């Protein structure tokens, strides 16, 4: 039996800055996972990925990453995606640095 589909977000890296970005329901990109579109249907996920890849001129390496619904939007399932969401653990760089400056 096929494994049940788990919810996904589409994520990639920005072409110029290289930082982690997420695909939103309105076909734009956000730096913030909680703003991403959570896709719960497998067929829809493939279509949305194709839609995201239309913007390959300004993004790199879009893929579907497991995510779950949280109180404030999608949250990571795997620790790798958690690091991508936050930044490294040895310095407050990356997204955690950006957040500290808000």
């Amino acid at each position, binding site marked *: 039996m096929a494994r049940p589909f788990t919810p996904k977000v589409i994520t990639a890296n920005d072409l*110029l*800055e*290289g930082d982690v970005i997420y695909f939103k329901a309105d076909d734009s990109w956000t730096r913030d996972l909680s703003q991403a579109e959570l896709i719960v249907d497998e067929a829809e996920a493939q279509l949305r990925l194709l839609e995201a890849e239309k913007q390959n001129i300004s993004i*790199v390496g879009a893929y579907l990453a497991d995510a779950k619904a949280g109180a404030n939007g999608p949250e990571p*399932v795997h620790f790798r995606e958690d690091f991508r969401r936050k930044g490294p653990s040895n*310095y407050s760089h990356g*997204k955690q640095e950006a957040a500290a400056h808000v």
Partner: protein
Amino acid sequence: MYKYNAFDEAFLAERNAQFRAQVERRIDGSLTEDEFKPLRLMNGVYLQLHAYMLRVAIPYGTLNSDQMRALALLAEKWDKGYGHFTTRQNIQYNWPKLPDIPDMLDALGEAGLHAIQTSGNTIRNTTADHFAGAAADELTDPRPFAELIRQWSTDHPEFQFLGRKFKIGITGSPNDRAVVKAHDVGLRMVERDGEIGFEVIVGGGLGRTPMVGKVIRDFLPQPDLLPYLESVLSVYNVLGRRDNKYKARIKITVQENGIDKIRELVEARFEERRHEFDGTDQELLAEIKTHFAAPQFRSGDTSAYDAAYNNDPVFRAWADTNLAEHRDANHAIVTISIKKHGDTPGDATADQMRVMADLAEELGYDELRISHQQNVILPHVHKNDLPVIHARLKDASLATANIGLISDIIACPGMDYCALATARSIPVAQEIATRFDALKLEHDIGHLQIKISGCINACGHHHVAHIGILGLDRAGVENYQITLGGDATETAAIGKRTGPGFAYDEIVPAVERLVDAYMGLRTDASETFLETYRRLGMEPFKTALYPEAQKKVA
């Protein structure tokens, strides 16, 4: 030190101009990522977890003060104020923006540095003994040969699309500080009948299939170096597998075909190739050698050093761990630890880089080295200058006295940065160093190498550590396997796995249990961890690591 000539400068400027145009074409959409990726990799540009990463070669680990300042400039102007020195004598910048990278490469070019062939399936930066030209035990300085290899391999048309990457390491000393047996080709200078030549080792490597290299030629005369290397590469290029990325390195080619068959093929190819070399390479080598003439070492007594050593215990502790024997009795080799307890192994800030550059310029014959152990070296220092150097290093948080000790840990970037990683390495290293610093035990523990990799590719050299740690992803959770008994020197050995791995919060206590066991088992303080392991084997350490399992058996 090698100084670029007009040809080198023009070549590099043209190459950088080409890459600038390639970046522009990617940004304006003329190139797809699939087209651009191999081009950026050829110039050391990776895309990692959070950002691009630029890997800059430090050829055979040698820098002058201006080059170190150029590295500081890049860190400050286009990155986040620091750089990360790696196990392959490279420096990595973790946060460059793509449009800035051509400017970074131009700034490097002005200092005689580049990022060419720091990635991709080509011949990578040739690494060398970081004490080259200074060590008391050295036959001859291997760096002119390494520079010859750099020039020969850069843009070599036959070897731009190898089956996989290809790493060469070289040492001029019988004591191997360059891990040459874990390279695709290792070159070890040996003496026979009064002539110095190379022992050529092939098929070593770490990664998912760790292997100690095998001797393919026990004595290669110096003039035959390039034709012989070209023959090894040529045989590999034809015979190496291209159907499976994980079986593509030359270590697998050697394993599958046998060293005897490889040797036979290489020797046959060598007979063909050597005639194509008309002596131009030897003229070039002779010219290169003039750049590496040893400095005029200052004479004079060492009374200031002796006084500091006898009167200042902090200086003495540092001198005991961080100095190595120089070939001139009044000089010493200084290893500057960039492993302060709790800091990221291998990271130096722009300010620290400038302090080290200034010390090299003022008191170190303008030479610096980067070691595969992720530290910085002042290879030539008159002993009387050591107290001043120590004081200035202390002011810059660079005077940690831990070289060769448990906190002198090699750690790859791991999942804090690397797109390939399966677990974190850096925080594990930070916590081990902090823990043993708090216990105030590390000088008592003595020589002990811990090396940590955040994935099976083994950039952190965990296979050749006395205590190796490999971070894996087990069902979505970080898990760390331990290996014991690895050795990175001329008696190279691959460590053996102890058993099941440990969770992130269990790994530091596990290391502590291992060290406690060693302290109880060693004959006396002169027996190192590795020697105790070799004497007693795995069992007592397993008992210490897995007390629960032992109880079940009992």
